[in-house]
């Protein structure tokens, strides 16, 4: 075991895992974090805590992760390269581990132009692949990036993102291979709506044998409304929503569209369970945490498995 985290133990035991996602509040209220996380308790195996997503200032991922950990849920602390240099990142990784955080997701981060401080300076001292490499060396070699020894190892289970819908498509699997080579233990993908394209990408992943080296969790986000479907299709680069899906949401009465979104999500999960190489689901119910139980139950994935004893 690299970290002994619940996520790692379940994946190593061959369980089909579910990770959820929680966006911390735009303020210092710990109860807001607890309330969101409560909805997920018992329905996911670990919960991602986003790091100032879309570059909007929120409670730190490390702070919210620690709160969630105290609640008995397992956090996956997200860390983006936008706001911190290598000194700060490594220091925060030590602090996070000391607070009981065992999973980290290494990301580039949304550009600050999308957020509420577009005039901020960005950092990008290192990129997401270099971050993965740095965390792996901290854990496996006991060295910080400069080569100095570490006193008290941060044994993190290391995650990375993959977007099968970004361009250039043929390079996407290569980029995944680079993340695996850098030391990623698990991958969470961008939300999938174009199932055919995802399956094409997955077959490339399997052809390269990458599914044997890294656990791939397929990203899903339930569509709450027609507006959301259209917004995702048009405004979020790197997300593809097929026209047929938009039509399907549009085809039901307005008050039934949320339910239809959940139905679609459950169908997607079922398809993904049957896709070779997929080891779990990353369920991003954005500001819809209270519907997670329904989705997980609907997909026949509740109750969640017990954590196997550490070997």
């Amino acid at each position, binding site marked *: 075991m690299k970290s002994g985290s619940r996520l790692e133990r379940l994946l190593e035991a061959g369980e089909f895992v579910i990770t959820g996602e929680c966006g911390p509040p735009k303020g210092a209220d710990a109860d807001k974090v607890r309330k969101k996380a409560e909805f997920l308790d018992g329905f996911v195996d670990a919960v991602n805590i986003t790091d100032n997503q879309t570059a909007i200032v929120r409670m730190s991922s490390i702070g919210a992760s620690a709160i969630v950990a105290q609640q008995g849920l397992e956090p996956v602390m997200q860390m983006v390269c*936008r706001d911190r240099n290598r000194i700060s990142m490594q220091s925060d990784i030590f602090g996070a581990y000391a607070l009981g955080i065992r999973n980290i997701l290494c990301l580039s981060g949304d550009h600050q*132009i999308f957020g509420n401080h577009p005039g901020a300076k*960005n950092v990008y001292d290192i990129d997401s*692949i270099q971050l993965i490499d740095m965390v792996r060396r901290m854990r496996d070699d006991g060295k910080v990036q400069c080569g100095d020894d570490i006193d008290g190892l941060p044994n993190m289970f290391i995650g990375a993102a*993959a*977007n099968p819908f*970004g*361009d*250039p498509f043929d*390079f996407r699997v290569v980029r995944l291979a680079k993340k695996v080579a850098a030391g990623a233990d698990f991958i969470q993908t961008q939300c999938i709506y174009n199932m055919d394209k995802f399956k094409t990408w997955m077959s490339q992943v399997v052809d390269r044998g990458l599914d044997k080296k890294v656990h791939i969790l397929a990203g899903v986000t339930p569509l709450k409304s027609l507006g959301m479907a259209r917004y995702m299709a048009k405004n979020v680069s790197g997300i593809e929503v097929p026209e047929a899906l938009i039509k399907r949401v549009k085809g039901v009465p307005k008050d039934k569209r949320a339910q239809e979104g959940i139905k679609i999500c459950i169908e997607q999960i079922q398809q993904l369970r049957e896709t070779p190489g997929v080891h779990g689901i990353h369920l991003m119910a954005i500001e819809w945490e209270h519907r997670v139980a329904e989705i997980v139950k609907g997909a026949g994935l509740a109750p969640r498995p017990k954590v196997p004893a550490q070997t």
Partner: protein
Amino acid sequence: MIVGERKPIEEIETAIGGRKRVLLLGCRGCVTVCNSGGEKEVAVLATELRIAGQVNKKVREIYEASIERQCDFEYIEPIRDQIRRAEVVVSLACGAGVQHVAEVAAELDSPVQVVPGLNTTFLGAATEEGIWAERCQGCGNCVLEITGGICPIARCSKSLMNGPCGGSSEGKCEINPEVDCAWQLIYDRLARLAKLENIERVIPARDWSTSRDGGPRKRVREDLRR
């Protein structure tokens, strides 16, 4: 070249303030090539200031001059007297030129203030007539041999060394559909050069000490020193 952009007239007016004898100083280097701070632009600014002066009923004497390069003391020396006669100098050079002229002007017996007439925008190149684009960040450790002659530091919005990120869509960057994704360009170029293997390995974290992060930089060539 260093690309600059003229400051708005209001900002230049404010910087001049109540001072009466104004020297507008152009530079025949980069900013002439990018049509922002050469002789022609000095003449345009002079006209704008004269019109503004008439409107605001300000009595002002505006003098125009341009020199070969403001980033070389050798060329500033001959216009020392012109600087001395002014109450304020508006330099239309890049930031380096403004600072060089300011250094000379501040050391005069009665010091003269130098204010910038341009915003220095980037190190770039003309992509077509009237369009300049950023190409270099002067990071002090060139990687263009790996990336097929396209700079990820200057041209990727996140300066990623192992890109493209998930925001690359149809050749464009997530920040703006007008901005090309540098990593799509790199990928296409390397594919053309049959060198895609260059970006298939993990490129390690950079040492930024050669960049501005290492503090202000200086280069010494002993063989050229007198």
